[in-house]
């Protein structure tokens, strides 16, 4: 039941991000609720389910993206795995620490995606757009962690 609830919330996040979040863009940047789900899965579940939800979150993000390969599937499952490892070593019950952790993960994800996309010849906008996204998206995503994490923790 816990897992089904988590899955449904993740689906809801996916649909919110693809539709209702459009007007809430700050300087053209919107939070990555699916990355938030992948990290939360790592913090809340055992490794098997953390990886499963990481893969699903990545799949949902990839299916509406423009690139034809599973970049997010690979990296979201990695972030779920890293979150799971970190949650075993460090207690992340404090929302502030969890938010900082999400911020770091989002920062790393954006940096790596830029490198991978550049390497693969996929254009991702100017350096200014990249810098703006790199600075704003992790903060914006982390801002959503406390309410999202509470919802996840309560329902799961």
């Amino acid at each position: 039941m816990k897992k089904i609830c988590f899955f449904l919330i993740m689906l809801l996040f996916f649909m919110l991000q693809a539709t209702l979040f459009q007007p809430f863009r700050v300087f053209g940047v919107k939070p990555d609720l699916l990355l938030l789900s992948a990290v939360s899965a790592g913090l809340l579940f055992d490794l098997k389910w953390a990886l499963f939800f990481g893969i699903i979150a990545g799949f949902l993000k990839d299916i509406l993206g423009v690139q034809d390969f599973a970049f997010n599937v690979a990296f979201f499952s990695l972030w779920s795995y890293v979150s799971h490892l970190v949650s075993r070593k460090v207690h992340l019950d404090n929302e502030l620490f969890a938010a900082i952790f999400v911020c770091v993960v989002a920062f790393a994800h954006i940096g790596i995606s830029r490198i991978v996309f550049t390497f693969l010849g996929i254009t991702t906008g100017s350096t200014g757009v990249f810098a703006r996204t790199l600075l704003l998206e992790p903060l914006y995503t982390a801002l959503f962690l406390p309410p999202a994490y509470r919802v996840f923790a309560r329902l799961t």
Partner: protein
Amino acid sequence: MFKLKDKRIAYAAICIVIVFAVFLSTPALRTPFLDSFRYPFSILAFIRREVSAFVFFHRNYVQKERLQKENDLLKTKLELADEAYRENARLKDILDLKQQSTFRMVAARVIARSPDNWSSAVMLDKGKSHGIRKGMAVVTFAGLAGKVTEASERSSKAMLINDPNLGVSAVIKRSRQEGLVCGTLGSTLVMRYLTKESDIQVSDTVITSGLTPVFPKGFMIGTVVAIGEEFSGLSRYALVKPAVDLSALEEVLIIVK
């Protein structure tokens, strides 16, 4: 740190990632998933539209008043343009010129947007069953909006012109100066490969040149808002404000023929 059981799970996860990678790279497998999200997305898009209509009631009212006046003015202009069009048609007949073919278009509604910040794409509620195919141009009444990059049976995905991966061959309407318009993910587009001597001014209109086979000639792209020199110093670029409000795109037309 890494137990045997954990290793097995990690291996299994890697295998699943590979399977998904293959899955996502194969349009025939990927498109049914796009279709399955069509109805939930349509419902959410409808809610968003209704909520914003309610919240922005006053703004919409003022806008309606302004548009009403503009509409009256345009009706008058249209009458004059219609007269000119008829005259033009008569002259063309006289000159025995081949009449320009009209496009067949399909109207579609935007039901979702790309969830990441690296691309600018929208999901449309019409697909192959409505005659939509990959590569078709997406326009609005204001001008060019993008092109279809993926089409499933009842939905499709379109890349917008502000995506950096989309290049459109364009000309300055006034001086016929050619260039390539690319997206920046921001509020403006950039027109590149303009020679240093190019005749281009702020507020010039940029239209499609027809050299990119996907985009028919003459579609409005936007207006020049700034001109600059490339870092190399060999050519210039122009920043173009798109004619279409890409952030508030709700309905589009797809040129199917």
